[in-house]
Every structure is written in C-alpha cells, then in structure tokens.
C-alpha cells in the first residue's frame, strides 16, 4: 500500500518531496526487512512442508501402488488379514458418510446461521453462538466416545428400527439394527462440522450490506423472503466456502468415525449397515506398521484421501464459479 502511494506522490519540490523522502526512507527500515523475510520465509516454509508431505506420502505408498496399480483406487476388497488391499469400498464409505452428513448439517447449519444473524434477539444470539463455539472445541475423540456410549444404544434400539419401519423410505434403512452404521457416523460427523458451518455462514450472512435487506423489505418481501432471496444469495460464496470446509473435515475425520461406523469393509446395503471409510481404516490399521505392503497400503489410503479431498474441493470451486456468474446481485435474485 505504501509503495502505491509513494508512486502517486509528485516528484519535485517543496514539503511534499520531504514526505516522499521520509516514506522512501521508511521502506529501508529494519522492521521492513524482517517483515519481508517473515513473509517469504513463512510462505516458503509452508510450501516446503506441503511438498515434503506429498513427496513422502507418494514415496511411502509407491509399493502399494506398484503392487495393485491404479486399480488400488477402485478395487473392492480391503482385508489386511489376507493381504488384500483395495480402497474402492472405503472411498464409497467416505463419500457416502460425508454426503449424508452434509444432508444433515447444511440445512441445520445454514438455518442456525440465518437465525443467529438475522432473526435472533441479542440476548439469545450471544449465548447460542458461544455454545456452538464450544462445540468446535470438543476434541473429535470425545464426540466419538459420545457416539459410542450414548448414541449407539439409542440407534440400535430406537432410531434404526423406527427408520426401517417407515413407509416408502424404510428400504433405505433396512437390515440388522447394529447401532454403529453409516448413518450414525454421518450424524457424528454432522455434529462435528456444525460449528464450522454455522460460524462461517454466519460471517458471510453478516457481511451482506444492510441496504440489500432494506431494499428487499421495501419491495414488500417478508422477513423470510428477504433472507432467502436477498441475503443468502448475496452470501453464496461464503456459504459455499463453509460447506467446502465442512466437507473437508468430514472426509478426513478418522478416529470418531472408527468408533461409530462398525468398521465393516463391505459395500453398504443400506444407510443403517455398518461400513468403513478411508479414515477409519487408517486408524484401525496404522499400528500394524510392519514395513512392507501393509504399511504402504495404509499410507496409500492417506494419499487417496488427499486426492479425494482435492477433487471435491476443486469440484466445489468449479460449481461456485459456474453458479456465481448468473446471480451477480440482489436484484437478480429478487426478480
């Protein structure tokens, strides 16, 4: 910023040039150098760590990839006891739990954020957002334990039999009610990603200019219509960022998922069937680190998880870019 303004300053004569001289002098002060070093050093170090991580993951998983080839990605069998390693079913489990978690968390999170930023009275908004912030501070293993100890029996005895008995939708939840299941894992993931979803969408909603709301209300919109048609569309990019982060967290979560998913590496036949994800398989197998194909395959699962996260993020970005063009402003949304 200072360099821009120095450039714009007149070049000759009088008191102005003294200011310019002072600014030019300032640029050479030691603090500036330290800042430059910090800036480049920080960025460089971060990039180096990421690159080093990628290289070591690639190197460590090369044995598994050499053994199974690209087929590792979609080969269905994960059975370390028999030396069969394939990530396919785990990829399905990861995508399925994440998708179900998002189906739960996006409406609830967005609704909560809209409530907090648009509708809630001050005396309620403060404590409520503090509570949600506290939820973010709960370690994932504690959420997992809560899922295992509290939710598992409730799911096995009440929730899963009830869902299976529903008309029309019952087939989604058929099969033995074990408790630990894709559905329970998704619920636990939804709880864990809720704070991210709420906090980021709330910030995005709060950043929408008051004038947009007032314009909508002046046009005769109800409060609900104003939020739905004026505020949320304007905050769209922020909300998508919130979803992207929530998706990333849900896909990568391992320990809490391993506690509640039932760890069954088979294609799930329903949402209440036990399953397995990339993260849960890593948690269960990482300790069996006898060097060789097994250890390499576990690290390869990590590589697959990384690729999957990048792909989903890129997909989200693309969606954002393609959707962002049409709805440039509030007026368009209200039309």
């Amino acid at each position, binding site marked *: 910023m200072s360099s821009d303004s120095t450039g714009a300053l007149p070049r000759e004569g009088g008191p102005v040039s003294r200011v310019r001289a002072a600014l030019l002098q300032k640029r050479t002060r030691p603090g500036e150098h330290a800042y430059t070093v910090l800036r480049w050093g920080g960025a460089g170090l971060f990039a180096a760590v990421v690159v080093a991580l990628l290289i070591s993951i690639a190197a460590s998983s090369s044995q598994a990839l050499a053994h199974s080839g690209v087929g590792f990605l979609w080969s269905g069998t994960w059975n370390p*006891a028999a030396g069969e390693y394939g990530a396919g079913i785990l990829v399905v489990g990861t995508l399925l739990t994440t998708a179900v978690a998002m189906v739960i968390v996006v409406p609830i999170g967005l609704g909560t954020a809209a409530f907090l930023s648009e509708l809630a009275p*001050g*005396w309620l908004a403060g404590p409520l957002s503090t509570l949600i912030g506290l939820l973010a501070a709960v370690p994932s293993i504690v959420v997992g334990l809560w899922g*295992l100890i509290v939710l598992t*029996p409730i799911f*096995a005895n009440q929730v899963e039999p009830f869902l299976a008995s529903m008309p029309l939708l019952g087939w989604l939840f058929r099969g033995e009610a074990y408790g630990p299941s894709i559905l329970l894992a998704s619920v636990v993931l939804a709880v864990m990603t809720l704070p991210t979803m709420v906090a980021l969408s709330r910030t995005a909603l709060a950043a929408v200019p008051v004038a947009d709301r007032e314009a909508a209300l002046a046009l005769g919109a109800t409060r609900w219509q104003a939020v739905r048609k004026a505020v949320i569309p304007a905050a769209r990019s922020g909300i998508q960022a919130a979803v992207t982060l929530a998706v990333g967290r849900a896909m990568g979560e391992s320990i809490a998922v391993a*506690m509640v998913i*039932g760890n*069954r590496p088979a294609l799930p036949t329903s949402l209440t069937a036990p399953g397995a994800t990339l993260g849960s398989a890593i948690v269960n*197998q990482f300790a069996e680190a006898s060097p060789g194909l097994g250890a390499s395959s576990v690290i390869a699962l990590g590589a697959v998880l990384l690729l999957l996260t990048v792909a989903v993020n890129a997909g989200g970005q693309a969606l954002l870019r393609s959707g962002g063009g049409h709805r440039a402003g509030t007026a368009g949304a209200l039309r």
Partner: protein
Amino acid sequence: MITRPSARGWKNTLVGLSALALVSVIAACGSTSGGGSTPSGSATATPSPCGSNTVLSATCDTETQASVTLTGAGANSIEPFFETVFYEYNQKNSRTTVNYSPAGSSVGVSDIQQATVNFGDSEIPMTSSQLSAATGGTVLQIPVDLGGVAISYNVPGAPANLKLDGPTLAGIFDGSITNWDSPLIATVSGVSNLPNLAIKPVHRADASGPGYDLEQYLIDTAPAWVTAIGTSTPSRTWPLATVGIGEQLNTGVATYVSQTSGSVGFVEYGYALQNGFVNAAILDAAGAYVAPTEASIALAGAQAANLSSTNFNVVNETGAGVYPLANFSWTLVYQKQSDTTTAIALGKLLDWVVTTGQQDAAALGYSPLPANVASLAQKTILEIEGSTGTPLFSS
C-alpha cells in the same frame, strides 16, 4: 448487552479453573519430589542388603537410587493388570513411575522397534521378521502375565456359561448362524429356549491378541472356519471383518456387548470380569465345556512345559478342566540398554511384576504365572545389559 456479563462470567470460570489446575499440578510436583527424597534419606542411613543396587530379589526389587519415569506401550488386554501392579510398585518404590499406554499389541511391537518406549508389550511374541526390524538390537521377550479370552454375550434370558464349541463359534463369527434360536446353538448348548433374537457378533477392528487366540482355536477345531478364511495361519487382524461389526480395543468391544442385546464378542477375561459379563463355556481338547475362571486359565498355563517366544501357543491345550482360550502376555525390552539408571529401574520393576506382582493377578481376571514360566521370565531379565554390554543384574 446482557451477553457481555455472561461472557465475562465464562472468563472468570476459566481463570478459576486454570488457577485450580495450576495449584494441583504444583501440589502433585511437591508430593512426588517429597516422596522421592524421604526414602532416599532412610536408605543412606541404614546399609542396604542390595549391595551395588543390581540385585534382583523380593526385597531389592523395590529399591532403586534414582528417580526414573518409565514409558511403555502395547497390549490393551494386559492394561487392568499393569495398571494395578505399576501403581502398587510405585507405592512401594516412589522413585519409579510408569506410564503405560494400552494402545494395542501392534503398537507395543512397533514402538519397541522404533525404540520410542522403554518397554513394549504384546499378547503375541514378536516374529523373527519383526525382531529383525528392531532398531535397537536384540529384543528380550519376557512373559509377564497369563490371561484368557472370554466369549461374552448379552442375550436376555440366556443362562450363564452357555456351552459353545468351535464349529458353532465359527458359524456365529462367519455369519452362517444368525439367530440365537438357531437349532445348531440349541443342540450344542442344550438350551432350547433361547430367544428369537438376531446375533450381533462384534470383533476387534484393530489387530489384537485375543483375536489371534480365538482364531487359533477356530482353526484347530472348525474346518469350516479354515475354508471361510482360506488359511490355517492365524493373524492378529480379524480375517472376516465383513461379518458383524468391528470395535476398537477390548474397551470398544466390551462397551458394545454391554449395551447391545443380541451381541456376542471376545474380550480379555479381565475386561469381562470388570464388566460383569456372562461368558460362554468353551469345548476344550479334553471334551469338556469349560468357562473362563482364574483356575481354568491357570490350568491352561500349566500345560506350557517348554514355553519360549517361539513356542508360546497355549490355545486348546489338552488336560482336565483346561480353558481353551489362554495366552501369555509378553513384555519387550532391548537387551542392551543405553542408560544404566533407567535399565536398573526397568529390570527391578519387571522382576517385581513377574514375582510379587503376580499376587494381584487373580482378583483382576488373570492367573499367576506358573513357576517354570516365572523362572523363564526372571532368567530373561538377568540378560539385560548396561551400556557397556555386560549383564547388569545378579540374583
């Protein structure tokens, strides 16, 4: 407006809590250093019979000179036993504190291979390839406790000690028997009124010693199991993970069994005892159905005539009253220790665990080591060397 004071209230609570934590930490530090200094004063006042402090005996095992904190990691199955004996040892010799992380046998093996702990522990001794991957040289494997694997079930209306044999257990865990009212179970158990309730088998999701033992038993007794898993070599990783559900560690399996009706799982007997589970009576090699007890597990251990780290199997032993699912847990230490002070503390602790400490076993669901195994353990501990490469201890 109103949220402001409440936020401040939070802050006050946090400040109060952290102050409390700080005070308790300081108090704890004070008590350990105080506890450490008092016995050292009395030790110098009266001449010790333990000579150069490297004698292993009932009286000398609890006497060391320096304050040492030992870290260990490994088998989850031995945790109830280790927790108690390490606490008791610390009561008798406050200079030695032990931190044991019960993360599983495979963690015990990999941690000792990487030399990140003073000792590891595994329900299955390390194989020769695992030994060759150890970064710190020769690993000594010391049998430290004798335990059993309980088949625990949660079936309303079912009697305790339900009789089960290998083929029936195999059927339950390979998914071919799916309901408690199955005629196959009724025939073997002699109980015809078991409820119409789906069987929910739960196995270990992580690699485990109890899983290895049960698999060994199923391989020995159920041909259908060998067909189902396609091998007659047991592995620590449960081979049929697509049947039932998997939970982590004994604690995860025990939690699931305790809260889910229809469930059946395998846990270290100590955990079954702690949780008050009902356990199956398993058909043993002598043709009798035996339930896990301290006595029946001790009888299995007594069959181990030539126990060693390569001949460790005490599953399905022949003999009257022998419980078929028993195993020794093995503590793993490097023969050559880099730090003599730590090595002395470690050797004395382990010698105490395999002798005096065994008195605690029965109450916790383990059985005391048979005399021949205890002497094997003591002999192995005597092989521990200091940094100079000479044996440290004398008996």
